[in-house]
């Protein structure tokens, strides 16, 4: 193993081929939040007309750095150079004026406005809407054709697919004259096909001289689209590479600071009897939308069943019903030979009694009470169990004994029972939730987005824990928007689109493209 500690600091920057023209140069940027140093002496060079990737784990300082560049934060130290000139970017307006555009992870669009109204926002062209719209529409149509940004200007944003919303965001930035485009985790909500489309757009933007900074945690994307890449860790840029000269393994190693196993060893295990049977489940949301349509599947002992799909195609609702958070409206669920019928008394408490544990998709909203201490969160949902209480009182000693073992065995850092869970990193929060649910010895584990916002080191650990649980014979239902994760963990995969199951396949036969087609609803298998 190479000793990567030697790459610490900025030495490698000089080893990069020095380009003639730099679009962005950040010099010695430092940003503190109280005691926490979010960016420490960061240097970054991005050549004009290239695509530069920034990778790093959560909390490595990527977003802070980009927010500084976009004028949302003011750095404590350091200078920003744009096209060789030192500039003072002290507000988003200023940075837009300087030609920087940002596409945020969560789109900043007005859902009830049309595509055109959204795209012209911030640069309306004229005081009067009518003449402004005509003016801007012309310009936008030009941009749209030039860069392959295919949008329907008349459509209302809330009716358009996320892929198009993202193109609107890019158009909006270009309409304001952006020459530098920052994209923060742009592929999180896209199908593989949409991702390919986005990358085509990015390439054509690059050809026209636009400089692109791409923040992502998906190493595969870095490898396929960027020209150069910087790795951030602990608030510092720890390495810079020319993309063609590096590998995902090397990038991951730099992100984490040690060697990581990206592959997963699946225990070979004969699956047992079905423990969860879902029959013809349909569900109507509060707004009257049919979010689940006639879902049927079963899950067996020792099996991991993956549910693939673009976020918002009914997976969340399915998890909610199975875990007792939502009432079952139609269909039938059989859990360990106990049958639940529509509108029967079915809640999270009962689900736990039936041996169903649940790692929810959103650990901030559901899985944890953030201001609670670890010891309080370690029994959330199980606080009525006799192990942690006597009569109506909580037994603090028993709880502390339990949580001390828990953080030790599942490597939750810092190993403290009396720190607010809200202060843990995403990965450690997730480890805590997973640990709690695994320790309840479930027959069935429902897992939603186990690695969303989780650093690579923790991902490794979470996969290991899931595999250990599988080999103990627990049935696991895995919902994830990360196709790689579904493909490498599951034994069987079902794909959901618009509330229906559109396909099922064994993970050994699955290819990313096939799954992608099913996810986008193009093909039924």
């Amino acid at each position, binding site marked *: 193993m190479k000793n990567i500690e030697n790459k610490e600091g900025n030495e490698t920057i000089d080893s990069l081929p020095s380009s003639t023209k730099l679009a962005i140069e950040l010099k010695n940027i430092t940003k503190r939040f*109280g*005691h926490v*140093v979010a960016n420490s002496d960061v240097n970054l060079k991005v050549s004009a007309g290239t695509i530069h990737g920034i990778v790093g784990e959560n909390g490595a300082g990527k977003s802070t750095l980009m927010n500084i560049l976009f004028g949302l934060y003011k750095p404590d130290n350091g200078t920003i150079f744009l096209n060789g000139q030192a500039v003072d970017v002290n507000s988003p307006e200023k940075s837009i004026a300087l030609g920087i555009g940002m596409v945020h992870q969560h789109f900043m669009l007005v859902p009830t406005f049309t595509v055109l109204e959204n795209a012209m926002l911030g640069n309306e062209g004229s005081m009067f809407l009518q003449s402004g719209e005509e003016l801007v529409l012309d310009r936008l149509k030009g941009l749209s054709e030039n860069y392959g940004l295919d949008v329907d200007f008349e459509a209302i944003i809330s009716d358009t697919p996320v892929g198009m919303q993202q193109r609107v965001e890019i158009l909006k930035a270009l309409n304001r004259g952006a020459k530098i485009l920052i994209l923060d985790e742009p592929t999180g909500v896209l199908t593989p096909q949409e991702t390919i489309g986005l990358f085509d757009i990015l390439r054509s933007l690059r050809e026209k001289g636009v400089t692109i900074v791409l923040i992502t945690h998906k190493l595969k994307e870095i490898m396929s689209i960027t020209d150069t890449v910087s790795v951030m860790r602990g608030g510092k840029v720890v390495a810079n590479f020319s993309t063609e000269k590096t590998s995902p393994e090397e990038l991951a190693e730099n992100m984490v600071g040690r060697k990581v196993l990206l592959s997963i060893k699946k225990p070979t295990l004969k699956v047992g009897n079905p423990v969860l049977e879902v029959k013809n489940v349909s569900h109507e949301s509060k707004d009257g939308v049919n979010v689940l349509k006639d879902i049927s599947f079963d899950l067996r002992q020792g099996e991991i069943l993956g549910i693939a799909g673009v976020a918002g195609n009914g997976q969340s609702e399915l998890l909610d019903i199975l875990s007792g*958070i939502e009432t079952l409206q139609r269909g039938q669920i059989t859990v360990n030979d106990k049958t639940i019928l529509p509108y029967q008394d079915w809640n*999270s408490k009962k689900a736990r009694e039936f041996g169903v544990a649940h790692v929810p998709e959103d650990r901030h909203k*559901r*899985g944890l009470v953030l201001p*609670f201490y670890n010891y309080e969160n370690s029994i959330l949902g199980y*606080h009525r169990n006799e192990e942690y209480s006597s009569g109506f*009182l909580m037994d603090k000693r028993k709880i502390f004994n339990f949580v001390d073992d828990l953080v030790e065995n599942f490597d939750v850092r810092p190993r403290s029972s009396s720190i607010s869970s809200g202060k843990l990193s995403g990965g450690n929060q997730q480890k805590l939730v997973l640990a709690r649910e695994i320790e309840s010895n479930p027959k069935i584990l429902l897992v939603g987005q186990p690695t969303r916002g989780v650093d690579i080191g923790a991902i490794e650990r979470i996969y290991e824990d899931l595999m250990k649980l599988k080999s103990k014979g627990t049935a696991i239902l895995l919902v994830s928007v990360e196709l790689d994760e579904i493909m490498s963990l599951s034994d069987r995969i079902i794909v959901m689109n618009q509330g229906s199951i559109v396909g099922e396949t064994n993970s050994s036969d699955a290819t990313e493209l096939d799954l992608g087609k099913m996810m986008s609803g193009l093909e039924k298998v």
Partner: protein
Amino acid sequence: MSDSNIIPKWLSVGVIPLMNLFLAFCVSGLFIFFIGENPFRAISVMIKGAFYYPGAIGYTLYYTTNFIFTGLAVALAFHARLFNIGGEGQAYVGGLGVGLVCLVFDQYVVGFLVTILAILGSVIFGAIWGIIPGYLQAKRGSHIVITTIMFNFIAAALMVYLLVNVIIEPGQMSPETRDFESGVGLVQIHILAKYLGLDMAMSPLNLSFIVALTVSVGFWFLVWRTKFGYEVRSLGHSETAAIYAGIKVSSTIIIVMAISGGLAGLVAINELLGVHNKLLLGFTAGYGFTGIAVALMGRNHPFGIFLASLLFGALYQGGTELDFEFSSITREMVLLIQGLIILFSGALAYMLNPLVERAYLKYYGNYSNA
């Protein structure tokens, strides 16, 4: 509301509230100066009035008792993220409980027993006045702020009707019931002291104060040591997480509002059983509303609520003295001072945080790569 995680706890819960208080007094001093009085003399009158004159401490603690009850009532609801503005009405209806129990039983049952029943009556009636808005919130989604405010008016109207038409002492004009029989009521502390051979100045301070302290300890125990308290706090911090944990949201809301109403109802034992010895119109005198400020300042913790109650008790009592001593300082001026304190320690509670953080980092901070 979020506490800073930069400065240590003794600064954020100890020093900063004192600084806020100091600022409030400074601004109050300015006002007193502008109306032509000497602010230093005013403050000395106030402090003497609250702590120094004979019986002053008794009066201060008597007011404190009311604020502890209403402060705890608001705080418990806050822990479930419910804003119970109905403390006033709940206390008022709690008084009805006390009054009815006493009027019905005091001629047949020994006074001690009647007193115990009357205390229960105050809690149960207050609880009922909390349960109804709680039920409406939990099952019907009517916002608790709106319903509790309305219930204050309903309580006031109900009490006027009953006191004027039904339970008024026959043959008199003022809307009050007859006096409770002797032997019913909570002993005043100065009388108790006399039995023990101590000489204390007369004041309305009575055994309710002890009840208030006991209830405070019970409050702490309930919120931080029981499963129910755990569920309440889970619900208060995150309803979605509470549902995930299998906590029954609606029944928790209803029970919290019952206990909250019961706590507010206890104001009646201090006022009616401890002092007035009869049920009368308007005995709640705004204590229910001030309880909101007390809970806010006391950060929903019984110890904080005790300190805040003490402060407000001292202000009430010292303010009365101000009113006596200075012709130009009226009751309204005292309300102004109270308002400023609520402003600085409630609404502007975190105003000084950045300043203190910066100062703290400058003298103690080391920019480690933590």
